[in-house]
């Protein structure tokens, strides 16, 4: 059986961030490069890095920020994205994200405490990604 549309679920540990059944294609930043998932893609599991997901639906582009995770393409055009966190660009508040980014930059200058270097750099990367996406799609 073949479908001409993708059924997509983006799931974070706290909620389902996005769910739709009529998706044409999805562009995803995986750790081995950006890929586009079209309907009837072969079953695939891959890891996602911090970046931008672009969902194409009826000629429209729905952009999302993602801070890493996993994608799972199932048979019959079902796509599941397990994200650490993800949000729609249209729901983003640039001022709030700018503030979060500024905090992350500030944290880089503070002396090390219980939070490791890794997590500081990571949160900076995540906030920068959110900021870029929020500004780009404003």
């Amino acid at each position: 059986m073949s479908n001409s549309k993708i059924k997509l679920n983006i799931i974070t540990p706290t909620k389902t961030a996005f769910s739709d059944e009529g998706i044409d294609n999805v562009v995803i930043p995986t750790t081995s490069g950006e890929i586009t998932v079209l309907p009837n893609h072969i079953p695939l599991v891959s890891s996602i890095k911090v970046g931008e997901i672009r969902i194409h639906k009826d000629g429209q582009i729905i952009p999302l920020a993602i801070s890493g995770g996993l994608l799972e393409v199932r048979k019959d055009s079902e796509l599941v994205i397990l994200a650490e966190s993800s949000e729609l660009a249209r729901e983003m508040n640039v001022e709030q994200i700018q503030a979060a980014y500024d905090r992350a930059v500030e944290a880089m200058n503070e002396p090390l405490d219980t939070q490791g270097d890794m997590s500081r750099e990571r949160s900076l990367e995540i906030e920068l990604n959110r900021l870029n996406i929020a500004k780009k799609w404003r």
Partner: protein
Amino acid sequence: MAVQTKVIKQKIASVKNIKKITKTMEMVSVSKMKKATGIVTGGKAYSTFAVELLSNIAGERHISHPLMEENTNKEKELVIVISSNKGLCGSYNVNISKALSKYKEASDMEVECLTIGKQSEKSAKRNKLPIIASFINLNEQSRVADFLSIRDIVVEKFRNNEYAKISVLYTEFINSASFKPNILKLIPVQEDIYKNVLLPQEDERRKSDSLAMYVLEPSAGEVLGTVLPGLIAHILYHTFLESAASEHSARMFAMKNAGDNASGLLDDLILYFNQARQAAITQEISEIVGGVEAMN
């Protein structure tokens, strides 16, 4: 006598105040508990998919990962103790402390602690266990991201062969009236344990097609290397939220009891107050009557 009524009046006022405070704390706890359980429910979908992915990759492909294997170190183990920052929540923290001391006695290894919450720090000290790190800034508004640094610490320590195993001592939230301390093995990762904690009900587990036909990119090992740390962080977050829900539920009951006791006390005090007032009036009358009689 006037002195006595005044004292009782003051007591009544302070008990009324206490009752108001306990009532408020009870309501606050109810809403916080609901919030915590709400997040736990919201995370069910993630749990379902992540656990399924783990069992599919690890179970069917027989691929292993260092985080799923025993360490050669057999002398030390780490327990992550989760409890509250604040007191006034009945037996919640005492139960964790008791469970910790029981666990310490049963273990044939040296036990070290990583504590979350001020009260667990105290529990560890009471049990004379060394604390390697303490986190006190987490609450039910914390996000998964806040648990990544804890995850990184324990994963690194495990991979450096510092501990034979790493467990989590938390309070399992069964429903709003019952919760109990529970200990679960975090690392080495065991699929069954994770499944039981994240998805206690059998029907929540989704049956899916075998992953055997899937293409895994870049490799099965690397996908597992992303799934496992993600799951560990998720388990930490999940157990923390269950503990938080239990804490608020425990506080809710403690405050309800305190409020009920205050009501009882108030009834008694009002009775005493009326008795004292009546006695004062009787005394005053008999004094006047006595005075009138003396004048005649």
